[in-house]
């Protein structure tokens, strides 16, 4: 994460470099064109002042001169040719250089593009990775949350089971205590009355609500009295059980 700002800046910098390099090369090409050597025209030869000395000599001289001139011409031609060749070569060379340059530039451009592409890809990849990581992180968080919830639920269920079993261990004592406080003032065989009993953490009876009347108030009232008289009821001391046991049903079935 901490590396990402630099990562984010570097492609920009690379792009700037690429542009600069292009400009530099462009300039260089311009300069090279500017300094291209001009073809220097050979100055025309100055006619020699001949003084007739002898014809032969003159002739010879003439011939010589002619030969020389031819030679000169030839030389000039040769030179010219050479120069042309040279020029041609140079041009070729130049062309070649240019082509090379161009190729290089293209290559460079290509490389830059490739680099750019690569960088973009890299960037894209990085973004993807980042995205993926983020998603993974999110998923993991969700998983953790779900696991924690499941654990909490499992714990609650465990608590509940433990509470119920703790209550079960005391149920007989509770039953005895209420039974022994119930005066059963008559024969109520076949009848039944139910109560919802709420207790505090010490087992003190807070409220007794009749949930199913027997139809005989003497049974109903004596049973209700019995629950109150039995208070406080034997009750688990473990505080986390309280939630599950704070209310329960009493059914009187004489």
């Amino acid at each position: 994460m901490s590396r990402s700002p630099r990562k984010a800046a570097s492609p920009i910098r690379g792009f700037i470099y690429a542009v600069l390099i292009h400009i530099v090369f462009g300039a260089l090409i311009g300069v090279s064109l500017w300094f291209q050597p001009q073809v220097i025209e050979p100055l025309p030869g100055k006619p020699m002042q001949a003084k007739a000395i002898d014809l032969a000599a003159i002739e010879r001289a003439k011939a010589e001169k002619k030969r020389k001139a031819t030679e000169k011409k030839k030389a000039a031609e040769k030179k010219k040719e050479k120069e042309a060749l040279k020029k041609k070569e140079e041009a070729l060379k130049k062309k070649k250089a240019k082509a090379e340059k161009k190729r290089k530039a293209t290559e460079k451009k290509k490389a830059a593009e490739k680099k750019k592409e690569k960088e973009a890809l890299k960037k894209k990849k990085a973004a993807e990775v980042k995205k993926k990581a983020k998603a993974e992180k999110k998923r993991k968080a969700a998983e953790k949350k779900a696991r924690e919830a499941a654990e909490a639920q499992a714990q609650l269920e465990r608590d509940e089971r433990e509470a119920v079993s703790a209550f079960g261990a005391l149920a007989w004592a509770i039953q005895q205590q209420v039974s022994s406080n119930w005066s059963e003032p008559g024969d109520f065989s076949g009848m039944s009355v139910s109560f919802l009993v709420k207790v505090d953490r010490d087992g003190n009876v807070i409220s007794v609500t009749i949930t199913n009347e027997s139809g005989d108030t003497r049974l109903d009232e004596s049973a209700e009295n019995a629950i109150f008289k039995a208070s406080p009821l034997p009750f688990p001391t473990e505080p986390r059980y309280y939630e599950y046991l704070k209310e329960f049903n009493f059914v009187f079935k004489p």
Partner: protein
Amino acid sequence: MRRLVAGMLLALSAGCVALLPASAFAALTIEITQGEDSGTPIAAVPFRWHGEGEPPEDIRAIIAADLHRSGRFDLLPTNDFLSKPSEVTEVRYKDWRLIKAEALVIGRVIEKGPDQFEVSFQLLDVYRERIKVGLRFSVSAAQLRQVAHQISDRIFYEMTGIRGAFDTRIAYVTMNQQDNSDRLYRLMVADSDGHDPQQILQTTNLPILSPAWSPNGEWLAYVSFSDATSGANIWLQDINSGNRRTIAQVEGAASAPAWSPDGKWLALTISAKGNTDIYVLQVASGDIRQLTRHPAIDTEPAWSPDGRHLVFTSDRSGRPQIYRIGRNGGEAERLTREGKENARASYDPSGKRLVMVTNRGTGAGYQIGVFSLASGEMELLTDGTLDESPTFSPNGAMILYATRLGRDGVLAAVSADGRVRQILKMHDGEVREPAWAASR
């Protein structure tokens, strides 16, 4: 006597699967099938006396004794009382919940004038903090005991739903013999608690047997003798006027009279020509009809509350057992099959149970048992060796019987569930054959 059936139910209706909010939970269930073996705890505060000197009667003591004797109540000791209110406004219900009273009786006796008293009481519901019943009586000193019994009846009814039978009378026979000379027999009538005994008849050397109340409580039928030479006969006596007459001149000896529920008939035993059978006599006309015809001894008839059947004791199987027969005769059906001997049966007011004397043949003698007609099972209520003549109270809640205390014959009462037994009469000579009146 009663076993606590530990029918415990620990049910999870929602199960452990669905985790419900704690408020919606509450599926734990405890089932109670039987109450305790003592009665309803009740606190009776001594009645406040507004008058000169000492009150003529201790109303509270009479009520407490009545309620205790019924076996339905556990009278809390007055020493435990945190306060002694006599008015509703003085009652702190919390005080009474603390000692686990379910009901509270308070009252006062005001001397209004010469031999004029006002008795008032309230029965309070301690847990619901309300008055269940409150009454006021204006009476003379002589009526104070009766008022106390009437209060007991009212409390009994409010608490149990059963009509009280404290303000009723009992009849019994006493025998006194002084200096190995004459035997004095007395037919007595007293309050149901044995108090205020009144002599109805006295005979010398002529036994009085088997007193039986007419359903309206005005007549007593009993067995006696005109003179030393005559046979036993049935007498009817108006207990208010004292007038008496024999009901029928029969051959042989008549005994064991029993009134039909409508008071128009008497079942009785007649021993004639060497045979003893049950007869039914129309009181108004004196017409008599034989009900059983068996060479064995058939005696001690008693009517069912609906008047359609009679039970009686017969030794036709070799030993005395209880049989039942239709009021118009027919085939007698044996009811008791357990025990060596069963005798002197009578119905309770519901017609579902019989009280009788039983000898189980274990050498323990004779006790009082209650026999369920539905199940055929007998429950023993007493543990004496010579308990006899049991009779249900008119409400079926108690049984009066005769028993031995040392060398004395005494009168005793037992609650119908056998929990509370009490001796009612002592030092009154030999007390025999109690009978409980159906009404005052």
